Every structure is written in C-alpha cells, then in structure tokens.
C-alpha cells in the first residue's frame, strides 16, 4: 500500500436518482501526475471533491495519503492541497493576506509562514504584487496565487481541478510548467482533471478517461494511443489547395476513412484504418482532381482515443464552433467493445 497515494474502492456518489460517480476503483502511485479526462459532467469534479473530503461518498471507500476519506478526514486534509475550478481567493484581500489566512488555518508558525509565502511568491514571479489586492489581478495572476495557496502546507498530494480553464496561452504554459516543477522537485503526487486532451497528454504519467461516472480507460497516454494505432489507425492531415465540399464528401465515403474533420478551407484531418489506407486515400484525392500540397502524418492524440472509446468527441466549448466533424457511418458502429 505504501507505494500508493490514493486507492479507491467502488467509490460512488449519488445525487438523488443521478449517479454522478459509479463504482470507480483506481489507484494513484506516489509521485505520479495522474490525469482525469472527460467531458463536462462526466464525474471528474465529484470524484475530486470526495477525495478532498468536501463531499461524502454514497458508497465505496477511498484512502488518500493513507487515511480513510471519511473516518480520517482531518488527517487527509493535513496532507492535501486543492486548486478547484472556482478560485479560492478573496478579491478584497491582498495576495499576502490571502496566503496568510490559509497559513494560519494550517497552523504554520509565523516565522516559517513569512519565509514560505516569500518563497512561493518568488516561485511564480509574483513577489512584486505581494501587497496588491487580488481584485486588481488578471485571471492568470490570480491563478498563480491560487496555485501557491494550495502549496502552503507542503501537501503530499495536490488536486488540480481544471487549473488552466479560461487562462491565456502564456499563463496556461506557465501553470503547466509549474505543475511539472512541483512534481519533479517535491515529488508531490498530482491529480489533475481536465477536459483538454492535449493538456493531459503533455503532463500526465497516467490518464483515466471517465464518462458517465465510470472509468472507461486507464493507462499511460502512450499506451492509450497505441491501443488505437495498434489497429493500423492512420491519422493524417491533407492540404488540398482546391478542396471542395463535394471532394470531402467523396473522401468520407472511402471505406478506409473512419472520421474526417475539416480543419480549414484547404486542410482536412483524416482518421483511417486498413493496410492500404494511405494509398487508397491518395488515390481518391487524385481521382477527384485534388491538388495535394502536403500530407502530414499525425500521431493519434488522446482526443482520438476518447473519440474511439466513447464514439463522441470531447468538445472544448470554444473550439466546438470552429470545428466541423463528420463521422463515417452510423454512430453505433463505433462502439466501445474494443476497450479491455
């Protein structure tokens, strides 16, 4: 048991008739970055809230840092830090006052508190803003303070619920870098939930895909991707300068093509299966008189894995308007019977 930070056993949460988390069992190793992937409402946040002792499980059990989340809730709290979806910060207080309040709640002695606050502020390059009110900060600045607030008590396990939601690309990159750094330097176990597949792919050692309250796949990102590429899955990006809707439709009818996404006026992303899939697709393009500018062989992403397993796409609200996805064949064909 010593090698695990978190062990859950049939963890279940019901809200009336709705089963938000349905008999979920998994373990997280010490020092691991573990990602929880899934669309909104899949049960990620509810699982995290139960593990953080904020919500009592309806059924099943779990230990966090070696303590039961119900019977040992206060011991669990000593060893965890939480960065939840909503920022835990008071706008009218300064960065320092916010950190001071939580340091006091964790019984950190005054001397150590001052050192710790300065050290953490320096870590996220916010020492200049120590005495400015949080309300005047940008979202990215707020989130940096929010993250270091969760680190005041030097937690063994850090829970991050959608830590980069709504941040600009620069802050997103910084927060990701910071997460990696904490994990590498302090061996802090990190539980991360996200609906951004790329984020999970970049950060996580292992990923659990959760849908409708159940874990439908759990492995390293590489293994998950191999799971679909192992069946000769080909993911390519075609750049056709004279691309038309008709051409895309005919391409979609090619029996090798499993899914087709129009990326822009000229670019298409194609998922295909079959020994001669690549040749067959090129032939179709040629036969339609398409002028092929370039072909990129794309690695399958976790997004492709999720699509493959659930038959649905995890949509980022913002990007869903831009993307236009077309599935080949009836949706029922892509069932999740290949999940082992």
């Amino acid at each position, binding site marked *: 048991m010593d090698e695990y930070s978190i062990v859950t056993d049939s963890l279940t949460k019901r809200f009336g008739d709705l089963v938000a988390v349905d008999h979920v069992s998994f373990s997280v190793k010490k020092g691991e970055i573990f990602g929880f992937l899934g669309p909104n409402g899949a049960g990620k946040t509810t699982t995290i809230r139960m593990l*953080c*002792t*904020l*919500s*009592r499980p309806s059924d099943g059990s779990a230990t966090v840092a070696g303590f039961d989340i119900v019977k040992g809730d*206060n*011991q669990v*709290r*000593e060893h*965890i830090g*939480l960065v*939840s*979806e*909503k*920022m*835990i*910060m*008071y706008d*009218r*207080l300064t960065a320092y*006052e916010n950190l001071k*309040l*939580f340091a*006091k*709640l*964790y*019984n950190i002695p005054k001397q150590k508190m001052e050192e710790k606050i300065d050290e953490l502020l320096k870590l996220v390059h916010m020492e200049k803003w120590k005495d400015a*009110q949080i309300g005047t900060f940008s979202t990215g600045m707020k989130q940096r303070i929010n993250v270091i*607030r969760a680190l005041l008590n030097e937690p063994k396990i850090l829970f991050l619920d959608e830590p980069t939601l709504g941040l600009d690309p620069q802050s997103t990159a910084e927060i990701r870098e910071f997460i990696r750094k904490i994990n590498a330097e302090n061996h802090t176990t990190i539980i991360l939930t996200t609906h951004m597949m790329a984020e999970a792919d970049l950060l996580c050692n292992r990923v659990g895909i959760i849908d409708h309250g159940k874990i439908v796949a759990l492995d390293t990102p590489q293994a998950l991707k191999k799971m679909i590429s192992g069946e000769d899955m080909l993911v390519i990006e075609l750049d056709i300068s004279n691309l038309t809707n008709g051409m895309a439709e005919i391409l979609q009818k090619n029996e090798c093509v499993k899914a087709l996404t129009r990326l822009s006026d000229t670019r298409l992303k194609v998922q295909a299966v079959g020994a001669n899939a690549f040749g067959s697709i090129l032939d179709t393009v040629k036969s339609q008189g398409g002028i092929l500018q370039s072909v990129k062989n794309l690695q399958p992403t976790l997004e492709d894995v999720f699509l493959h397993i659930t038959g649905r796409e995890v949509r980022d609200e913002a990007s869903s308007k831009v993307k236009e996805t077309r599935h080949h064949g009836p949706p029922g064909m892509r069932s999740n019977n290949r999940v082992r």
Partner: protein
Amino acid sequence: MGFKQTINHSVWICWKDLLEFTRSKMGLIMVIIMPLFMMIMVGFIFPDSAATIEDAPIAVANLDSGPLGGNFTANLEYVNSETGMMTLTSADGMEDIRSQIYEGKIDGGIVISENFTADLLAGRQGTIAIMTDQSNPQMSMQVQAALSMTITQMGSGAAMANLNQTYGIPANETLAAIKPYTVEVESLIPNDPSYFQFVAPGIMAMVVMMSLMTGLPHAISYEKDTGTLDGMLVAPIRRLSIILGKVLAQTSRGMLQGLIILVLAILLFGVTIYGNVLLVFFIMFLAVFSFVGLGILITSFSDKEETASMMMMTLMFPMMFLGGVFFPIEQMPGFMQTISQFLPLTYATSALRKVMILGAGIDSIMTEILFMLAFGLIFLAVAVPMFKRAMNR
C-alpha cells in the same frame, strides 16, 4: 484539535471577514446610513401625541339666529388664536362642510345648531356638531380631540362666568366648583419620553438582529457560491471554527451598528440613557446571541444565497412588527401577543427600553435575559449539527 486552536482559527476567519468588510467603501457607508435612515424615518413620520396639530383647516357654520352663536364663534377664534391649532374659515352648513371635506379643502367642521341661543336661554344645553375627515383616521382623531378640548374649555369658561355672576361665588373658586378633581402625572423619569425615546431601543435591537440575520447567511452562502468556502473546508480545521469566525465577524458588525444608533439617538434626537451603558451593551450582545442559532439554521437549510435572503425576509418582517419595536405589544390582538412572547426581539426590545428609558438595573430584566439565553442555546443546539451536516453534502 484543541479548544485553543478552534478559537484561534475562528479569530483568523473573523479577521478575514472584517478586513474584507472594511475594504468595501459602500458597505462601510451603508453601515452608517442604514441606521440613520431608520432613525429619521421613524423619528419623524410617527406622531408625537394627539395635541400637536397645527393650523388644521376647519370650517365653522353658524346656523344660530340668536346672539349666543356669534359669541361662541368669537370665543372660539379667541381661544384658537392662543393655541394656533386651527385655521378657521366659514361655511354655510353641514352640507357645505361635507362637500369641502370631500374636496380636501378642510380637515373638519363645526356646526352651531339653529336653536343654540334658544336652548341656552331655556336652560337646556346648546348643541355643537363636529364633522371630521374620517378617511384619515389618525388626523380625524386628532382634530376631534382638539375640537372637543377647545369646546370643553370654552364650556368651562362659560360655566365659571355663570357661577360667578349668578351665584356670587368668587372668581378664583369657580374652577374648583365645576372641576373638583385635578390629575397630576408623577413620572419615573424627569421628562416626558417622546415617541423617539420609546422607539430608539427597539431600533437598536432590530438593527442588531437584522445585521446578524442577514449578514450571517449571506457571509456563508456567498462563500459557498463563489467557491471560497471549499478553501476553508479543505483545511484541517473544525467546522465549528468556520461558524464561530463568521458569527464573531457579524456580531462585531451588528454591535458597531447598534453603537452608531445609540450615538445618533443621543446626538441628533435628544434621547437620554437613564440606565447603565455597559448594561445596554450586554443586552445587545445577548440579543445577538439569541439570533445566532436561527441565522445558522437558515444558512444550513438554504443551498444558495438567494434562498437564504428570501427565508431571512420571511422571518424578519413578522419579528420586526411583532417584537414591539414600533407599536406597544399591549395594543395588539390577543393571538399576536402570544406569538410575540416567543420572539427574542420582544425581550431584547423590552430589556433595552427598561434600561435606557427607565434606568432599570440588571435584576429587573432577569426574565428577558433568561429568555434570550434560552432561545439562543436551544437554536444553537439544533443549528450547529445541522450546519455540519449541510457542509458534508
């Protein structure tokens, strides 16, 4: 986790709440303006007593054919010129007065009957009819009282003159002959208490109640809505520290408002405190204590800030009106009086009134103190476990 740590955590949570509060300029201004508004409102809209009408437009119709009706009118004008209660105009008769009242020109009228002189000369009483605008009961009552008083006074004057002239009783003894008794009011305190003196202690109790009952659920539900409450819940502190911290912060705010009212009442409205000021604060503190449990209970029941405020309002209004803040409880119907006997505000108001107006000591308000303590303890005993349960949903 020890008692000391629980207190320590709650003090820091209180520190945070008060710091947030002092950073909100609007909030600070409102803390002063709200009680000031309340005081000015009740201080000026409620009438002092029946005798304060001034320049009320009153029409007089003299239907009498004899000379005594004219005498009466002249006398009335003379008395009125001294009191200044009415502005007298003339009218043709009852019908004219009625229509003038309908038009809103006058508040009431006096009619001297046709046979006024004849009746008086024949040894009968002369009849004066009074008509008032009954659509405004308060005003109507005041006008009636003023008219009756004026006319009675004139009657006494006439009677005294009669006794002196007809029976030869010396002028300085005539008053004792027609009014053998006189009443002197011995008060407990030097001056007559104004309505304001009556209402100021009630408002203090009410504002303390309001700031706690609205402040506490707001403080907790707001943090629940914005997600910051999770930060405290995920820290290794007792749930009790969170409630305690919030209660401490809201109590300080409520007491501050109570103090502001007290100062305003003394400086602006001439209220005098006859009792011990420390005792006044002790009662305010007890009042806060008696509402705390109720406030926590409502917080536990409501999932959102909106629900909390609505529940608050529903409970607060009856308390405000049944707690004896504005109207004496004795004037209410029987079953309302019964309800008011179960409201802590009733006891807070009563205790504050006894101490502030009458200068009573602690032993005279034991009933009030015990009730507030009991009410507070019972509700806390129910509310704290409910709150803990609600936090673990």
